[in-house]
């Protein structure tokens, strides 16, 4: 069975797209955190935990909600999640660093520190959709479709999963680019480097 790209979401340039269709636009070019909060409200994501999340988890959650909230079929509980970016969770890292720079060690806040690992964004998706599945977070210099394809195929060939949620979720203050796509054994777009570079 051929594995194809079946569903994808882009969050970039003040807009959110689902399978190439614009579904939300940043009103008045608000800063990222306001933009993503506006999207959360207008897209009616209805998941209050969102408000506690760091910028990386917010970006990842909105993108995955676009793909999975109205998914027409039953979600594969074993759908693997493979995310990647360049900056890790640098925004919340800076906040925690500021906390301890300004107020000393005692200035550390658990609500901030808990997000200072990039894979927490994966955990939030796993929790929301109850996906007890393979999951990993990689750091690259830039979007690395060849790696993501090779790694996804290895998981499929080793029978670790039968579908995947894969992507690039980069956010570093106002520089952001979210691209999440599903790989499934269904008709769709060919899973190639060329295609992924077109879609991101």
């Amino acid at each position, binding site marked *: 069975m051929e594995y194809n790209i079946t569903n994808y979401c882009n969050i970039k340039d003040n807009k959110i797209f689902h399978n190439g269709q614009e579904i939300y636009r940043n009103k008045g070019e608000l800063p990222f955190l306001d933009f993503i909060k506006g999207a959360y409200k207008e897209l009616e994501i209805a998941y209050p935990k969102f408000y506690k999340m760091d910028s990386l988890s917010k970006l990842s959650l909105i993108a995955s909600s676009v793909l999975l909230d109205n998914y027409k079929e039953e979600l594969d509980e074993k759908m693997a999640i493979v995310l990647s970016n360049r900056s890790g969770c640098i925004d919340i*890292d800076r906040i925690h660093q500021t906390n*301890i720079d300004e107020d000393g*060690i005692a200035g550390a806040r658990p609500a901030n520190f*808990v997000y200072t690992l990039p894979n927490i964004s994966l955990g939030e998706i796993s929790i929301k959709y109850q996906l*007890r599945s393979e999951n*990993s977070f990689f*750091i690259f210099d830039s979007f690395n479709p060849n790696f993501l394809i*090779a790694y996804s195929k290895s998981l499929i*060939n*080793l029978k670790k999963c039968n579908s995947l949620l894969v992507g690039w979720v980069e956010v570093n203050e106002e520089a952001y680019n979210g691209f999440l796509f599903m790989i499934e054994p269904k008709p769709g777009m060919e899973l190639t480097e060329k295609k992924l570079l077109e879609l991101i």
Partner: protein
Amino acid sequence: MENGNLHIYTAGGACVTSLGMNLEENIANIKAGKSGIHKHEDKNLSAEAFYGAIINKEKLEKAFNLTVYKGIFTTLEKMFLIALKDVLNDYQAYVNEDCGIIFSMTKGNIDDLSSDSPNYLHDLAQKVSRTIGMKNEAIVLSNACVSGIMAVSVAKRLIHTGLYKHCLVVGGDIFSRFVFSGFQSFQAVSNEPCKPYDKDRDGITLGEAAAAIFVSKDKSVFGTKTVYEIVGEGSINDANHISGPSRTGEGLFQSVKSAIDEAGIEAKEIDCISSHGTATMYNDEMEAQAFNRIDLQDIPVFSLKACYGHTLGAAGLLEAVVSLRFADENLIPPSFNYKEHGLTLPLNINTEVQKKDINYVLKTASGFGGSNTAVIFKKV
């Protein structure tokens, strides 16, 4: 590409820790009952004196000067390079376009974080990779405390899929103010050296280390070393809470099950378990739940956290390297600081160096974000 019958191997390994600058020194110290955890005073890290497993920086400099690498490197980069140099003494010849390199790190050079120095983990990895002559792009896995051992399974997966023939796997993290302050805000740091699985355990001891290992589909690269095949592995999320493990150990249970199923063995064939054992109330209890569910409660289990502290991105790999080195001699390492059972379910905690014919070693890890990893090594 299907490679159903492909076998992927590993052997040896290297480490740089609070217990020594090379693996042999580490093994000798553990056998002698020594721990890398000591009391320290450093107002920059903690208002009061604290326990931590911190590398002697003079020894680190000396060890680094013995490598051929020239340049300006941070503490963590030096730790990586020393561990890699040790491994490359045997495998430099295979560092070509068929060889990948996977780094496991949680925070990198985090204490240098500022607006001038944003701390990109990939930049760090590339710098270290280029220094050792690696041509392929570095792959960085940053998946909390399972990263070290998950990196081994990533190497195995990438070799299985044909991307590489061999992989260098290296993991490391420093004892940082950033992380220590965070764990203190969680009230998760013990005031004494940590006591995995013990009734009086009350939190972690933080540590720092780097470790490295070579993984290959070609058994002959390992020469006369005792070789292990990576016969099964799994990394399943709890989907429960981002910082607390599942009370039923669901993710760990499924990860171990995935590894056992892939290995085609029964749970009772596992000879010893190098577990995560961080000495928090929740983690250790969760492991007891998961191991009992899969019928592993009688298998000797040990946590090296009482020896090395929690070394974050290094932990899974360091502990696997040490466990395999003990297994070379058919020995099971000790789990320090365990006096009275502090779990609601039984586990067979191994407290002394024990002689046993070792064929299968199970390494497990769990981490924030609900992550879990299990890898089974088979002596060949």
